[in-house]
């Protein structure tokens, strides 16, 4: 049998792309899916793409998901590659999440907290039984969720305000003359990383990777088992100060999930015992991601505070350098590119070493020539 040398002609590449487009479309007898359907009915996929793509645009995310045939990491990559070409007008004012119009807010630390436990739209407590009516004839009209008679407390107090009067929970105090926040999309990774750089990397990081890290910390590879102080999900206003106006104006609303994890801190000679906090903030409704993010934040802060960085989740370089799935996916998949030049270099060395090995054996009168694999098999 003769092999065909693998050389990629331009025609072959163009054809491969055409085939890909065909596969994306699937059976032409089945109606084409519309990006608005993806936007409305695959909203959590949209959230994840916006979050890891670092670009809040539901329509673009829907387009990316369609073009990527539902491959979420591929969609994230497309959004990133588009985002990087966008002109930059400036940075918004810091978001005020206590002003969030919360659709969901729960705390595991207290039975009840000011503002109440608001379940909102959640998979929690659903039974994961396949609902075959969704596949059969579509769903019947969904009865609307009942509206509360009492309006929800607004602004909804957060876990920090609950603890405030006792100073039991560590407070993140903004540095008054803080420089511009670190921006990983413009600057390379730098160590030791500031918390701004760290949180940005985590917010962009791969959900699966962060989930695994957070889980490893709970299972004993890092000894962190924090408490979920609060998770809230809802809409927050974004304000921007245009140079020509000089005062903030609202430019839109975005949906966010915020998570605060709390963990016991024993204090020290000059520091009263106090709960420490880890922070997670992500676009859209990505609860698993926001929880994982705040747990990794806690683990990294523990290492800052002098605990030995003796587990992957506590190691800043390990966590930050490997959490970006666009980087990871690209580099892992680059192994598909031809490597025959370096392989040839390795092959020469191995053959040389083998020749020397058998020469030594012959000299010692030990063994014979190696059998060719073909002979062994047949």
């Amino acid at each position, binding site marked *: 049998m003769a092999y065909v040398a693998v050389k990629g002609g331009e025609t072959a590449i163009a054809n491969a792309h055409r085939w890909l487009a065909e596969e994306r479309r699937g059976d032409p007898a089945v109606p084409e899916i519309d990006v608005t359907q993806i936007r409305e009915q695959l909203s959590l996929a949209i959230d994840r793409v916006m979050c890891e793509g670092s670009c809040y645009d539901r329509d673009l995310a829907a387009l990316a998901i369609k073009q990527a045939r539902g491959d979420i990491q591929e969609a994230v990559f497309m959004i990133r590659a588009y985002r990087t*070409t966008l002109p930059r007008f400036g940075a918004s004012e810091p978001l005020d999440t206590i002003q969030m119009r919360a659709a969901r807010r729960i705390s595991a630390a207290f039975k009840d907290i000011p503002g109440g436990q608001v379940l909102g739209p959640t998979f929690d407590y659903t039974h994961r039984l396949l609902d075959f009516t969704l596949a059969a004839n579509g769903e019947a009209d969904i009865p609307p969720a009942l509206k509360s008679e009492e309006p929800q407390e607004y602004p909804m107090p957060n876990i920090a305000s609950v603890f405030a009067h006792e100073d039991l929970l560590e407070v993140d105090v903004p540095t008054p003359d803080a420089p511009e926040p670190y921006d990983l999309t413009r600057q390379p990774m730098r160590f030791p990383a500031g918390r701004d750089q760290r949180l940005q990397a985590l917010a962009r990081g791969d959900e699966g990777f962060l989930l695994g890290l957070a889980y490893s910390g709970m299972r004993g590879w890092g000894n962190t088992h924090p408490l979920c102080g609060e998770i809230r999900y809802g809409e927050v206003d974004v304000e921007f100060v245009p140079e020509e106006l000089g005062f903030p104006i609202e430019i839109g609303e975005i949906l966010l999930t915020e998570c605060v994890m709390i963990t016991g801190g024993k204090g020290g000679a000059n520091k009263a015992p106090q709960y420490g906090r880890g922070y997670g903030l992500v676009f859209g409704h990505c609860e698993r991601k926001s929880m994982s993010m705040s747990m990794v934040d806690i683990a990294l802060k523990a290492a800052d505070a002098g605990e030995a960085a003796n587990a992957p989740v506590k190691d800043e370089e390990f966590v930050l*350098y490997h959490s970006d799935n*666009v980087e990871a996916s*690209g580099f892992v998949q680059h192994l598909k590119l*031809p*490597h025959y030049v370096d392989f040839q*270099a390795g092959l020469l*060395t191995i053959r040389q070493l083998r020749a020397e090995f058998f020469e030594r054996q012959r000299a010692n009168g030990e063994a014979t020539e190696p059998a060719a694999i*073909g002979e062994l098999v047949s």
Partner: protein
Amino acid sequence: MTVTAQQSNQPTQQYNYAYLDEQTKRMIRRAILKALAIPGYQVPFGSREMPVPYGWGTGGIQVTAAIIGPDDVFKCIDQGADDTTNAVSIRQFFAKVADVATTEATSEATIVQSRHRIPEKTLKQGQILVLQVPQPEPLRGLEARETETRAMHAYEEYGVKYVSLYQSIAAHGRITTGAGYPAMVNQRYLMTPSPIPKFDNPKINQSDAIMLFGAGREKRIYAVPPHTDVRSLDFEDYPFEIQSWEEICALCGSEDSYLDEVVLDDEGNRMFVCSDTHHCSVRRDAGHAGPLAGHALATAQEAAE
């Protein structure tokens, strides 16, 4: 092989010339100038997300995008070949977004972007070689932490690299590194020449051309300016040596080029051909012939050209 004409940039005007915005190009040029001023030193830069994946040449593409102009002639190779898939893709990218002429002829190119090879034809003054780099840190295999390796470079603390070469000799009787062979630049910075075979290392030493190295994912640029000493690490009793073959190129008969091994069948038959496809075709055109001249592989290459 002649230079192909420029293509119209019309359909891609949603993007700036050569894809990157001017601010970004300026930032990358500053990094390149710094890299040229400190030969072999890895300059961190604000690498952007590109429309090709990390590990597929994003660093090289950004370097090229920052230095390319409409008058340039661009050549792109991967494994020495102009017709490998990724080389084709990157060449088409610049033909489209930079409205630039492309070529396969090494001597006609003003910019040669490459992965894993340096062309056989000696580069001359006025040419720029842009190498795509997956891992810019020559010490990474020995020390995983960037904070540590940066300090090691600052203190010129390269003993550990020599120890690893010594260990290779102790275990195998020779230095077994075949590609990405570490080199000392201008007697100061240890550099990885990217995963080119060590066969190509001598081409970097005292070259007339500018050599730029771009690592997109790791966000580093480094450079070897023309006429710079680049010494591959070795020992007095174990001097640096490059690869050699008992075979010659089956197509052009070349005795001194880097050869790829092409497996012909399941019976162990194989042929050796020049990895630098352009070099090979120039020699064939000049009348040189190897033992398998006229083999389907050569005709396929000519058809592609």
